[in-house]
């Protein structure tokens, strides 16, 4: 638990804004939004942190922990601003990176353009060596070929090198020797990543791609972290700095410098972690709707769902392998978040057949919706909901952003209502419904697509627009409970405070259970546990400070895709094969609706995970008063236009029935007729069907 003078800072960097949350004793919580400084992000962070500390009269030395999430890694890939990178592969396989898995994310196209590989062919160099699938050496490493490659790399002046050899997941020796030779030959600043260190699992394209991404990000992120650290130290914040990983754990800044590929989805992960800790006792589906996309994820028993089927730079990730191929495969654990192109700035269009679409094209922050008055001409989702009366034109970002309702209505009439032969309000309602229908797909991608019934879950809504659409989406899926946490508009920064230290080490090991023994498998887990202990020691946690959980990616022998299940252990500490078989069968049944008890089960990858819980607990959050109460006309489809009360969150101490609009500094929560809003001790709004 925190001591009285201890303060924790969460910093979430997005493209436009840097969100800062400062948490201290007795639920004290201060929120600050400041413009990001893309030329040197560390400066903006330090300025913001100092502003919030000085504003509250808190000494920099009272900050005991800084937790940070950032989109810098993602943007480095999207904007192709990573290091000039070379790749070393096994003879015969330099084009694996470029050919990928072939599949593209579109079905009917003759003009598709692939993303350029992160390493051009001239820097993809082959060395002579060959391993077999059990790690056996078929052709020894010819070191002369490594030396030749090193000379070419030197001449090209690269900033990073990725090393990915065929079957290196089963035997890292050749890769490590190549790295050793390179270190002897190259400038010490060159960043080197081995596939057997970053992702020792089978499937050469995915492993190579992941290794390349890590190398590509390495130099830029190392520089970025140095800047963040330097600026914070300069304002006398001496606390340890932790970085949120894509899987929701945090790692030290130093560890993140070695493994930047682990933090690519750090921002979205923070929000989901916040949900998992805030509503640990309910199963929930998170819905994070911002300006351009809506993201959904699932939390069961306080645990987030993770996946390794992920691509960076692919644009929108529907969490569906059916539309993979648009980005760069990054096969590291990320929180399984599905994303759909529907946000506040999503553009409204009508197709040749007369149907309405919302997104995926977006007006972004500039020019933004018509109502922003910054030159946006095409109707957006925000223009529609403004017309429905859900948003206060004078109170967005605490009044920092004024909206022009008339302009939005005129555009809506002209572009949508006329064509549909509808009244403006009905047209706006139609746009709202289509957007919600689209977002439902994101929610289904993490629930029904995985055999989960959304009715068994609460919808946990955040992001600037999440609480606007939450009840409508809940209704479409027959969900009856919605939770809106405090500070929903800066919720990712808040989620950072709730994250614990978490590490996972993995090892590819393809073996049928019938062909191995508990002792052998246990020994392999033991080795992984030692590796984990080392990582934890680097973070300052000794054995005993964390629990090591054994898990395995398993499948029926011959299947292509694996399910990750915990590995139960017998009293002597060895893996319990019967229990593992049962755990896998149950998970298969749960996910796909059937199991095949007669089939052999095989392991593909072994995992050991360790976690140290966060020291900050969200028991009591002081709820700030909002603006003055009032009322305005809001339109709810079949229920028509009604007078809805406008209140602040604090006013919900007694349950209040909709229609109701809860206005806050950073978000608006819409409560339609038929729903009731109440507040819990931690300041969460609960919406329930009456």
């Amino acid at each position, binding site marked *: 638990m925190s001591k009285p003078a201890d303060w924790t800072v969460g910093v979430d960097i997005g493209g436009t804004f840097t969100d800062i949350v400062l948490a201290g004793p007795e639920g004290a919580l201060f929120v600050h939004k400041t413009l990001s400084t893309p030329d040197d992000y560390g400066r903006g962070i330090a300025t913001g942190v100092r502003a919030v500390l000085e504003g509250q009269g808190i000494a920099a030395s009272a900050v005991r922990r800084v937790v940070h999430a950032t989109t810098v890694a993602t943007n480095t890939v999207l904007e192709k601003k990573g290091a000039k990178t070379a790749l070393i592969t096994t003879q015969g396989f330099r084009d694996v990176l470029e*050919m990928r898995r072939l599949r593209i994310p579109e079905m009917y196209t003759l*003009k598709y353009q692939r993303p350029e590989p992160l390493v051009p062919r*001239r820097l993809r160099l082959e060395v002579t060596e060959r391993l077999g699938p059990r790690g056996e050496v078929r052709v020894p490493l010819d070191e002369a070929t490594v030396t030749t490659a090193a000379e070419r790399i030197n001449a090209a002046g690269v900033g990073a090198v990725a090393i990915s050899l065929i079957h290196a997941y089963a035997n890292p020796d050749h890769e490590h020797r190549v790295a050793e030779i390179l270190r002897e030959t190259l400038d010490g600043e060159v960043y080197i990543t081995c596939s057997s260190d970053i992702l020792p699992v089978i499937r050469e394209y995915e492993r190579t791609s992941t290794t390349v991404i890590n190398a590509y990000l390495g130099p830029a992120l190392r520089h970025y972290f140095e800047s963040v650290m330097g600026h914070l130290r300069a304002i006398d914040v001496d606390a340890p700095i932790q970085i949120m990983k894509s899987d929701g754990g945090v790692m030290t800044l130093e560890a993140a410098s070695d493994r930047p590929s682990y933090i690519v989805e750090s921002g979205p992960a923070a929000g989901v972690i916040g949900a998992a800790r805030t509503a640990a006792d309910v199963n929930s589906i998170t819905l994070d709707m911002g300006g351009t996309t809506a993201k959904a994820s699932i939390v069961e028993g306080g645990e987030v769902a993770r996946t390794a089927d992920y691509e960076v730079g692919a644009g929108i990730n529907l969490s569906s392998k059916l539309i993979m191929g648009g980005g760069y495969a990054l096969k590291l654990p990320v929180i399984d978040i599905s994303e759909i192109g529907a946000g506040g700035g999503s553009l409204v269009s009508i197709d*040749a057949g007369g149907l309405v679409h919302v997104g995926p094209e977006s007006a972004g922050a500039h020019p933004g919706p018509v109502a922003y008055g910054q030159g946006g001409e095409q109707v957006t989702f925000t223009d529609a909901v403004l017309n429905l009366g859900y948003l206060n034109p004078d109170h967005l970002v605490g009044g920092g952003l004024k909206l022009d309702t008339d302009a939005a209505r005129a555009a809506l009439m002209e572009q949508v209502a006329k064509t549909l032969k509808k009244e403006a309000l009905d047209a706006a309602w139609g746009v709202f419904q289509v957007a919600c229908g689209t977002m439902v797909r994101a929610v289904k991608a993490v629930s029904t697509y995985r055999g989960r019934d959304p009715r068994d879950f609460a919808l946990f809504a955040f992001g600037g627009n999440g609480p606007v659409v939450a009840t409508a989406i809940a209704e479409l899926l027959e969900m009856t409970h919605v939770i809106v946490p405090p500070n929903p508009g800066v919720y990712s920064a808040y989620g950072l405070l709730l994250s614990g230290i978490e590490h996972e080490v993995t090892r590819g090991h393809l073996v049928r259970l019938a062909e191995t023994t508990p002792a052998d498998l246990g020994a392999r887990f033991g080795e992984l546990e030692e590796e984990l202990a080392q990582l934890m020691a680097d973070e300052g946690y000794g054995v005993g400070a964390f629990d090591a959980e054994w898990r395995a990616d398993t499948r029926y022998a011959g299947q292509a*895709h694996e399910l990750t299940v915990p590995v139960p252990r017998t009293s002597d500490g060895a893996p319990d094969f019967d229990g593992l078989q049962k755990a896998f069968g149950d998970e298969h049944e749960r996910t796909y609706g059937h199991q095949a008890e007669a089939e052999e089960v095989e392991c593909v990858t072994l995992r050991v995970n360790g976690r140290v819980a966060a020291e900050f607990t969200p028991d009591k959050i002081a709820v700030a008063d909002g603006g003055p109460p009032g009322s305005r006309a809001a339109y709810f489809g079949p229920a028509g236009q009604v007078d809805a009360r406008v209140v602040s969150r604090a006013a919900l101490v007694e349950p209040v029935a909709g229609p109701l609009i809860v206005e806050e500094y950073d978000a608006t929560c819409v409560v339609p007729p038929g729903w009731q809003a109440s507040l819990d001790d931690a300041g969460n709004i609960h919406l329930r069907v009456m």
Partner: protein
Amino acid sequence: MASYGNTDPITMEVVKNALSSIADEMALVIMRTAYSSIVRDSMDYSTGVCDRHGRVVAHGMTMALHLGSFPDAMTQLVSQYEGDILEGDIFVFNDPYTAGGMHLPDVYIVKPIFEAGELEGYAATLVHQIDMGGIAPGSTATFATEIFQEGLRIPVIKLYEQGRPNDTFFKIMSLNSRVPDKLLGDMRAQVAACNSAAQAYAKLVAKHGSETFRRLIDDLHDYAEHVAREEIRRLPDGTWSFTDYLDGLGDDPEPLPLKATVTIDGDNMLVDWTGSAPQVPAGINCPSPFVVSTVQMMLKCVAKQEIPNFDGFSRPIEIILPEGTLVNPTPPAAVAARAIIGWRAVDVLQGVFAQIVPDDVPAAGEGGVTFPAISGWDQGRRFVVSETLCGSWGALPERDGVFGIPNPGGNLTNQPIEMIEALYPIEIQRYGMLENSGGPGKFRGAPGIVRSYRMLNDETLVVLRSDRKHHLPWALGGGAPGTPCLHIVNPGPGQRLLPPMPSDPVKFGVDEVFLHVGAGGGGYGDPLERDPAMVLEDVREEQLTAAYVKAVYGVVIDGEGRVDAAATAAKREELRGGNGHAYLDFALGALGIDDFLVKDGIVHYD
């Protein structure tokens, strides 16, 4: 705007999305639970949702060329079982002549969906099963002469009757496959997908009420028709033809023409396949659904907006498929390797549409997947692994052909090398591009793909179906055709060049090598007009050599790796008189093939 009955366009959009999300969910269930590599990694399967009449209302995002696979099959099922379709039934079939199937490995599993006791729709799946018995492992041999040799024919029958499995039939299936565990595993995946879709679809019907829902579906068919008509109307009126050729069968192949004539008349489109070769006594005859798919796919490819998958979109399209030809065979014609016709039909249509909308259609690509089925024995167990090899497109008027991409007809993936080596006694020695390959042009075709297999066990068989060894991927706008597709046994001195579709399985011993070289895409425009800077970039990328670009593009690169402008101008002037087929000399020479002759655009090998 268009009007469809009284249905609200908002509700239509929402229901349309809900239906396609059901089909996608089915596709995911199959992908994650299937056993055979062709399903799980190559994704050679399809899912669909149909209305109560069996008309398609959604199609999962997998194979474009399966698009037309459900209508005929559903027509057969509905007409044969009308009045006897009961809750809990699940149907299975594969026969092209009695069940609307395509070839025997494509096993359909279809579940009727009931809500409140009423038949409201169907969940339909089609999976390319790895082995259904027959004359050769993989059940896709080209060398059967009648369908009776190709494996187990299944008419439309009930796999489950009111929820009870038909154990007799499961036993028959199991006994007729070389790899029954994979067959049954994949069928389980299909059933699981149908069950999950049935639940979601029934809910959707219940939500809107049967009457409203049915009207909504009718309106969505009309909507799809309207969008398709708008897209056809956008095309110029007129009639265009194109003929392409398959290399042919056996050790001494004779070319087989495929011809399509497309007429656009207002918002109607007529595609006439008259002029295509008569059916042949080999397993490449193509039942009509697959050819219909190519037409529908091509319209979707050139459309400016997404044409929804409601069956209504096919109403403005008329297709003439003369009976007894490669594109509409009569029984007992063999059909196992029929996809080769589908791939070539895509090229034929591409050739037609390149005349109709020249900016939107590339030159011919590699010609569809090459399909080797590799089989043998490993530690006493039979193994069969089928590969779908593809990845090179032709050039567009403003852009080079894309490399490392599935054929437009099938959004397939490659199989991980490490996974193949972990599961089968095969070592893959190389996978990548063939340097100095592809069709030259102002914009060049993509290079060919190389994949080389070393067999680790004796008595390994390869059943091969390929094409484009003799008839090269055609070019556009004055570019050069692509480079040929070749299969070589034991490359090096004494190597053996295989015909595109050998009449028998090819046998390999320990350490023997099977080398696949895919065709390179056709070029666009005169190679001598290619920007020398782009040529230089190809050399720097080590995709083309300096000697090659000098001989083919007339670009001279000096000792410091820069373009020598004066020498280039002179060389280009010299080459305007023609350079024969210098680009083929390079591509084939590197493979040890020096004796070949190009006559009338066809490559002959000595």
